[in-house]
């Protein structure tokens, strides 16, 4: 199936000379949740802003469901809802007025039933007549989501949707995003919280220094890059790895009191049994052992560090 968003050779150089995007190619599949991870200044917001029509690309092309964002901008934009990173709201308007305004702006006739459903879904119904400025930060964030959903978009961009939102509310938001995905909306979110990407996304894109470093299905990424490690706490510290164990990828840590063995999760045989036997043969005794799987966060940090 044709990707819902196709980005080709996208570059952006700001007037200051800063090159925010250095040739981005990206396909976003219909109905998926793509998490864009990247350090501050990697180009996440610039990328989103170009697709949504807020920033002009220097070169390259973007199509949204087959519509070029420049030539066929009306059709392309009608499909997209955007939740910006900053809490920018019309302070003096009521929740109902500001959400209804957004629907009109995107060319849809007024439909109170749709607005009502959205506000109820986002637990904003009892606040519908409240002025936006009287709401808490978490509620304002939900108002922004309601505005983005008001015209029933097929694609939703969430630029750091849970920044500054408390843990409980974050859970609620994840559930809501899951429901949206189930209804067929394609969701692209940027985040600093690796936990968020790990929890929700089908695909992970990593962007760093204005380039897409990788795009991968989450499970495949975890498997491909995920390392497990076995840590043995030794009874007596070692000053160096004994030459008999040179075949194994071992490192010493904690001043020689810990022996760390890295192994690949994809291999059938991990080599743990053999290693433990050999240790016993050479009289190296241990008091405790533990295994760990690297999280997406570590994968991410390693990736960005490698490219830097």
């Amino acid at each position, binding site marked *: 199936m044709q990707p819902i968003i196709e980005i080709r050779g996208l570059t952006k150089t700001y007037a200051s000379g800063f090159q925010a995007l250095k040739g981005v190619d990206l396909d976003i599949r219909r109905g998926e949740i793509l998490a864009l991870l990247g350090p501050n200044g990697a180009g996440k917001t610039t990328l989103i802003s170009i697709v949504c029509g*807020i920033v002009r690309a220097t070169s390259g092309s973007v199509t949204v469901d087959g519509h070029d964002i420049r030539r066929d901008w*009306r059709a392309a934009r009608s499909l*997209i809802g955007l939740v910006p990173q900053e809490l920018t709201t019309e302070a003096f*308007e009521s929740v109902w007025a500001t959400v209804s*305004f957004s629907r*009109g*702006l995107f*060319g849809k006739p007024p439909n109170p039933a749709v607005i009502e459903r959205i506000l109820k879904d986002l637990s904003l119904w009892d606040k519908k007549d409240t002025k936006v400025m009287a709401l808490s930060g978490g509620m304002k964030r939900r108002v922004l989501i309601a505005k983005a959903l008001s015209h029933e978009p097929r694609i939703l961009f969430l630029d750091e949707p849970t920044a500054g939102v408390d843990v409980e509310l974050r859970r609620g938001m994840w559930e809501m995003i899951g429901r949206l995905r189930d209804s067929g909306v394609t969701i692209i979110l940027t985040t600093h919280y690796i936990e968020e990407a790990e929890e929700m996304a089908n695909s992970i894109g990593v962007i760093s220094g204005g380039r897409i470093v990788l795009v991968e299905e989450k499970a495949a990424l975890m498997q491909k890059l995920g390392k497990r490690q076995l840590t043995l706490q030794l009874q007596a510290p070692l000053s160096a790895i004994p030459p008999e164990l040179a075949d194994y990828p071992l490192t010493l840590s904690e001043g020689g009191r810990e022996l760390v063995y890295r192994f690949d999760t994809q291999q059938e045989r991990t080599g743990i049994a053999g290693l433990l036997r050999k240790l016993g043969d050479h009289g190296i005794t241990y008091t405790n052992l533990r295994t760990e799987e690297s999280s997406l966060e570590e994968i991410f940090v390693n990736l960005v560090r490698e490219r830097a």
Partner: protein
Amino acid sequence: MNLHAIRAIYLFELARTWRTLAQSIAGPVISTSLYFVVFGAAIGGRFTSIEGVSYGAFLVPGLVMMSVLTESVSNASFGIYMPRYSGTIYELLSAPVSAFETVIGYVGAAATKSLILGTLILLTARLFVDFSIAHPVWMVAFLVLTSVTFSLLGFILGIWADGWQKLQIVPMLIVTPLAFLGGSFYSIKMLPPFWQTVTLFNPVVYLVSGFRWSFYGAADMPVALSLGMTALLLAICLAVVWWIFRTGYKLKN
């Protein structure tokens, strides 16, 4: 044509007017009443009539024009500057709304408000002085043309300004002086010859003159010239707005 968007912007902006009814309508009406009391009643009695029109009646078109053009500028500039300042402009930029539709929405709402204001001032003036309108259709035409032109000017100002100071400095240092020196309170024929010539470079003179002609059938400038100059000003503002959207000036980077 995204008619729903035009409607949304237009109603949204008018709603802002109702919300701030005291500042946006009552303020100008009260200050105009004060002008009538001070100039019309207190001082006006000492003036002889100008070209057969009593000084109080002479004041009416000028005062309406002055309020309409300053309020058009400040209202339209605020309308578009506010979303830029608060950041909510992102929504407008990402919406399937063309530049033309945006301008109709914002400028239309600002001009509508000015027309309401102009009408209210005329009604208020009727309480103080007796006046007649010789050419009502032209009167409305001048009022609409001025409201639209100066709302466009305000729109441009609201996009150009990058701070509240700039937003206020143009009305304060340019629009208000031009309005005061535009013959609202006097006939420019009362000025020394040198200042009469200088005055010819003030576009407000033509607006006030044309508007006054529609009331009393006589004015400082030929009415065709007034109309022409107003249309020229409108054309200039339209060109600047067109250029702003074409280049994305201060809207998109």
